[in-house]
């Protein structure tokens, strides 16, 4: 490891450590700045602002976008439209990127999309074993568990066990398809429309669609069943 990386590690280091106590035991002989991530990132930000490389208002706008504007509600609208408009569903499954763009969701980490459909015989599950790739325009930023080692390691070797942990027991005759999205394509699961939802409007259907169902770790259920979606 080169000296530079060691320096940044020590600096970022203890920083985001999940286990701070353990981090403090670590040998940090290269630590030249406070290990507090707040201070570390503040230093980076002010350096880049001072150099004219980034603009603070743009940083605020980026954060605001993912905190308030882009999230799983986008994907839910895509799913509800596919459930109620057969021609749209056909376009969505044939060329997802342009069909999703019809609803105005495009760009960063969703430049090239594929939508995979759950049926009574096929269940799809999305993971990224090498990284944390996730379709941002339709789902927003991924939850911590999606980026975690337990989910990334087990989804490909024991998908049914992972689903069980999420409360979803699949019948043995259902085919499981795990999509390891380690390349440049991002995947969205089109969950099955719940039975008994025939009278619901597109808007009411969208309200039922959860983030987890579009990753494939849950099914969409009607609220009166009392089950967790």
């Amino acid at each position, binding site marked *: 490891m080169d000296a530079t*990386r060691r320096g*940044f590690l020590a600096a970022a280091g203890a920083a985001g450590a999940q286990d701070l106590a353990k981090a403090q035991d670590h040998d940090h002989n290269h630590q030249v700045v406070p290990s507090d991530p707040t201070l570390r990132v503040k230093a980076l930000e002010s*350096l880049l602002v001072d150099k004219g490389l980034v603009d603070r208002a*743009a940083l605020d706008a980026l954060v605001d976008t993912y905190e308030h504007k882009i999230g799983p509600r986008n994907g839910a609208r895509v799913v509800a439209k596919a459930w109620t408009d057969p021609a749209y569903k056909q376009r969505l499954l044939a060329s997802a990127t342009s069909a999703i763009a019809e609803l105005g969701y495009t760009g960063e980490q969703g430049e090239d999309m594929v939508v995979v459909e759950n049926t009574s015989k096929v269940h799809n599950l999305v993971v990224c*074993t090498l*990284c944390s790739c996730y379709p941002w325009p339709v789902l927003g930023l991924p939850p911590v568990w999606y980026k975690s080692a337990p989910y990334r390691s087990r989804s490909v070797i024991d998908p049914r066990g992972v689903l069980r942990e999420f409360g979803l027991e699949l019948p043995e005759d259902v085919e499981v398809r795990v999509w390891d999205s380690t*390349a440049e394509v991002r995947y969205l699961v089109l969950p099955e429309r719940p039975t008994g939802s025939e009278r619901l409007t597109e808007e009411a259907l969208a309200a039922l669609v959860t983030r987890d169902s579009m990753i494939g770790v849950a099914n969409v259920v009607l609220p009166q069943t009392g089950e967790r979606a």
Partner: protein
Amino acid sequence: MNGIHDMGGMHGMGPIEREENEPVFHARWESRIFALRRAMRPWPKYNGKANRYHIELIPPEEQLRLSYHAKFVVSVSELLVESGFATTEEILKGKPARRSPKLVPPLKAEQVPAFLAKGSSSRRAVAVEPLFKTGQSVRARNINPIGHTRLPRYARGKKGTVDRDHGVFIFPDSNVAGLGEKPQHVYSVRFLARELWGEQASPRDFVYIDLWDDYLEPA
């Protein structure tokens, strides 16, 4: 590289811990490092596509210990030095060296929506012949590159079927190494779970992996 980031199929990582009503960011610094790494993207010299590789180079025990956003504090710092935007000393001090030039213009707030809506696709509109076709039997090559690669270890040497051709994309192995984009076809290859994991896997499970031409050979 055969690093700890390549986790598919590993045991012992513990239960999946979920958080109800999880916030998008858990602390302000997480949101700021996230925004910083996006805001640097428009600079042509800044090789944001190498971010993942810089994370892979973090020693394994540190990779497991650091949270997702903390790893980016390291990789963004590395990329800034590598691309010549800042020195190690400047980063650790948080202040530009005296007389260092001020670069303008950075990404502006009013440009953010269009910037995000456009994204930065790795797809390339170049005519490259596909080496394989849909339905064909292929084998993931048994290679162990020391640089960045998207061929997971658990797939190497395994046989699958080309499920679909996604089109032509930058080849990350050469691109991250500074050896050019080498655009080529990426296919979704369908592997029987039993081919990957043996008899313990369900005969009805499949894993689909997106693989470039250079990762595959006819089977």
